[in-house]
């Protein structure tokens, strides 16, 4: 099985440099992020506080009625440890009118509404606080499409998107994210008792190993099976990655002219900075 150990000092250095450089070159000095009480946003908050100074980081807690009490408490541990600025903006009153209009709305749909409501709050705070929104999606989630488009996937820049969950956990431990956050099972906390691994149907430990072979090491599916993964699991994960490609790219523009944004109008975002 592959070794997903990372040099946490090096990752920390590159990611804090990235946050500082990419925010300041865009003309800002501050960052905004949603602090859920989970591991990913806690790590993003630690890195942002180190990169920009705690007073330049706004951590927003956005609980829903059914959010676990632990989530708020765990987010508070991060806020207390770092001294970042903070706001608590419950989303219940904002999303309930829509839920009430569709009484048969199922959990997944509600979860997407909540994720997008949080996005609205973060981008509003981005304007109010004059800070850029930091994304907290990791490489595992992005590849599996375990994100809400225009919801938790929406951000101005993402420092964590090239770290698998198991690598992110190493970095979180190295920067001093509090122990209760490192220990608890990952959860989107969109409904009571939800955990990522139950919902996905496999563990991060297993899928990270497989994704590392498939994506980073360019193994063929058969080579993954030969390395000890069940064929059914390998093919299910490959199909999931394929089906979610739409979440990882800008929407396609129908080409009509000789020069079209995205196809042959090519500039980095850092153009001129």
């Amino acid at each position, binding site marked *: 099985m592959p070794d997903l150990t990372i040099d946490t*000092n*090096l990752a920390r250095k590159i990611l804090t440099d*990235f946050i500082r450089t990419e925010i300041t070159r865009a003309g800002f000095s501050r960052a905004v992020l949603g602090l859920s009480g989970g591991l990913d946003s806690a790590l993003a908050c630690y890195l942002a506080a180190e990169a920009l100074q705690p007073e330049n980081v706004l951590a927003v807690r956005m609980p829903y009625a059914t959010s676990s009490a632990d989530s708020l408490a765990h987010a508070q541990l991060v806020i207390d440890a770092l001294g970042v600025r903070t706001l608590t903006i419950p989303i219940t009153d904002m999303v309930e009118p829509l839920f009430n209009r569709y009484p048969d709305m199922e959990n997944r749909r509600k979860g997407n509404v909540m994720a997008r409501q949080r996005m609205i709050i973060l981008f509003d705070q981005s304007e109010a606080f004059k800070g850029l929104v930091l994304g907290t999606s990791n490489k595992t989630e992005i590849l599996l499409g375990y994100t809400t488009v225009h919801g938790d996937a929406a951000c101005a820049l993402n420092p964590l998107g090239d770290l698998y969950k198991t690598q992110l956990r190493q970095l979180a431990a190295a920067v001093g994210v509090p122990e209760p956050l490192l220990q608890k099972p990952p959860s989107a906390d969109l409904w009571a008792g939800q955990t990522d691994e139950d919902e996905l149907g496999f563990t991060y430990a297993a899928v990270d190993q497989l994704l590392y072979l498939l994506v980073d090491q360019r193994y063929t599916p058969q080579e993954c099976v030969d390395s000890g993964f069940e064929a059914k699991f390998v093919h299910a994960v490959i199909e999931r990655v394929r089906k979610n490609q739409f979440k990882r790219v800008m929407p396609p523009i129908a080409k009509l002219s000789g020069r079209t944004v995205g196809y042959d109008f090519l*500039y*980095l975002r*850092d*153009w*001129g900075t």
Partner: protein
Amino acid sequence: MKLNVAMAQINTVLGNVEQNLEKHLDLIEQARRAGADLITFPELSLTGYALQDLTPTVACRPLPDDPVFNPLLAASQDIDIQVGFVEEDERNLFYIATAFLSGGAVRHIHHKVYLPTYGFFDEGRFFARGESVRAFDTRFGRVGMLICEDFWHASSPYMLWLDGADLFLFTSASPGRGITPTPHNTAPGRTESARWVNDIIRAYAGMFTTFVVHTNRAGFEDGINFWGGSSAFSPDGEPLVNGVEHAEALVLAELDLSQLRRTRTRLPLLRDERTSLVQREITRITRNADG
């Protein structure tokens, strides 16, 4: 003879030649005051790296009346300068280029001959390939210049060696990638790409019994980091300096050029190199490949 080299490991403003030129002139002045004989700048130092559709807008011609080269040529009266830029030729082909300026004149220009177009590299889409690898004479002896991917092909430094270069000036805009740990590592370590580059250029210094100076850029372009870590190696393959990684710096190194004689007396690899044999075999191999 001692040669003091200043490696200007800079970040750049993407597509803004004016601002980058200003930074070059500041660093040239700093290097001159520090007693450097030569200052080297990274690949595409005047323009930034991932230019894409900015390529034609930042291109220039290294002529005395060019607004970018005019002040650089003036500055080269006091200190020799190696600078990275986009050159546009008479027929509007664009090259990733590096120029050696000395005494107010352009002494040599190298066009990048290997354009990486794979993974996230896309140079072949925007640039024309250089067609020569040649050494040239300077006041410090014979020098050869290569740009990044050029020296991932062993034939490039090999040709420079045969062409008489005793000092290789390598420049890069090398993206940092790979964060597996190095053993017993407590401080931030090196990316895998940084380890590879340093292993390769160190090997060239030792195998070709030649000085190698490598200048790599720092900073970010979108999510891509450039790892800096400029370095110089002696003809024994010993590191003379290792610049700070992941930060801008003016890295200074003193090259004792008399080391060439001592090393080559001890280890006469150059004397024993069988150029004709190589030529014969390459002729046979290419004939077979063509055949």
